[in-house]
């Protein structure tokens, strides 16, 4: 039997203990699903794909932000005990469900969206995969917005307005997209008071990213790009 301690409630709440039978290859998401289906149907949690594609099942497992669907119980249980909480640095809606609006609003504030310059009448853009910019873009493009990096970031916990690793990583991929037409605006958006310069390079985001992306490297790239823009009077 596994002793599972699960956060229940919203801003005010407490940990509630459940007993869940151990199974081979059991994931933490399996455990949460077992509790909801067999022990307490009022437990609120969020998931969709179960296979590490959608990025909706991230929770805090034994104090560490993880995808629960890709985390085996055997990898995290200590003395047959597991503690499961909602992601940190985000408001809790209920139980294990967080309100991710601010997380995604920050992507928008960092201008983390593509702004094309061509029309359907123009030819395809030719982007050499080996080019430095294409390589930098590829390194960060696989982010699925799960919020693990954001929940692991010390700077977000210190200053709530910090744009955070995911939004800045997305901005960096777009800065390296040669087809994009909003480079200067984006550099201005990420260089503001709560932008890339607030990063302390603790690298928790890079350590915890389930996709093995390095938002730290992306943020360092933004620091270099904004510094260059400032020197050239483009900022």
């Amino acid at each position, binding site marked *: 039997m596994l002793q599972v301690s699960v956060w229940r409630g919203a801003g005010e709440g407490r940990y509630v203990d459940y007993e869940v039978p151990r199974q081979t290859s059991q994931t933490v998401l399996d455990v949460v699903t077992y509790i909801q289906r067999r022990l307490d149907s009022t437990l609120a949690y969020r998931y969709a794909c179960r296979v590490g594609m959608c990025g909706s099942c991230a929770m805090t497992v034994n104090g560490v932000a993880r995808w629960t669907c890709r985390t085996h119980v055997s990898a995290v249980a200590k003395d047959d005990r597991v503690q499961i909480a909602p992601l940190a640095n985000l408001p809790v809606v209920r139980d294990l469900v967080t309100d991710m609006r601010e997380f995604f609003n920050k992507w928008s504030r960092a201008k983390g969206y593509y702004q094309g310059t061509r029309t359907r009448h123009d030819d395809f853009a030719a982007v050499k995969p080996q080019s430095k910019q294409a390589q930098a873009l590829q390194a960060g493009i696989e982010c699925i917005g799960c919020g693990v990096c954001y929940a692991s970031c010390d*700077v977000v916990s*210190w200053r709530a307005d910090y744009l955070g690793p995911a939004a800045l990583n997305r901005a960096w991929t777009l800065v390296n997209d040669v087809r994009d037409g909003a480079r200067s605006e984006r550099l*201005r958006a990420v260089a503001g*008071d709560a932008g890339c310069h607030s990063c302390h390079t603790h690298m928790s985001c890079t350590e915890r990213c389930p996709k093995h992306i390095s938002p730290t490297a992306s943020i360092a790239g933004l620091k270099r790009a904004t510094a260059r823009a400032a020197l050239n009077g483009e*900022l």
Partner: protein
Amino acid sequence: MVASSSARHETWLWFAQRASALVLALCVVVHLITIVYATRGGLSGAEVLDRTRGNAAWLSFYAVFVLAVAVHVPIGLRTIAIEWLGWRSRARDGALIVVAVALAVMGFAATWGLFR
């Protein structure tokens, strides 16, 4: 354009912080090695003054050192003020300019005092 001026401001502060850190890294190493080397056989105050007085190389090295400190420390304190104290008013930057000026004045006074 408030956002734009903030972006420029933050970027320049970051740049000044990095550039001064580069200078400090060199200065601190030279400073420490000199101390350890100079004091091997014991060193009196008179002997220190004997070496620093009228020494233009010594004066210029420590003038650069003091300048780098006066730039670097207030920018770092600014981040601490934001993150630890949540201090975001204009008074914060005013207070930090006072810190910068105080560091520069004290540093240059000490350096000049050993030179003349």
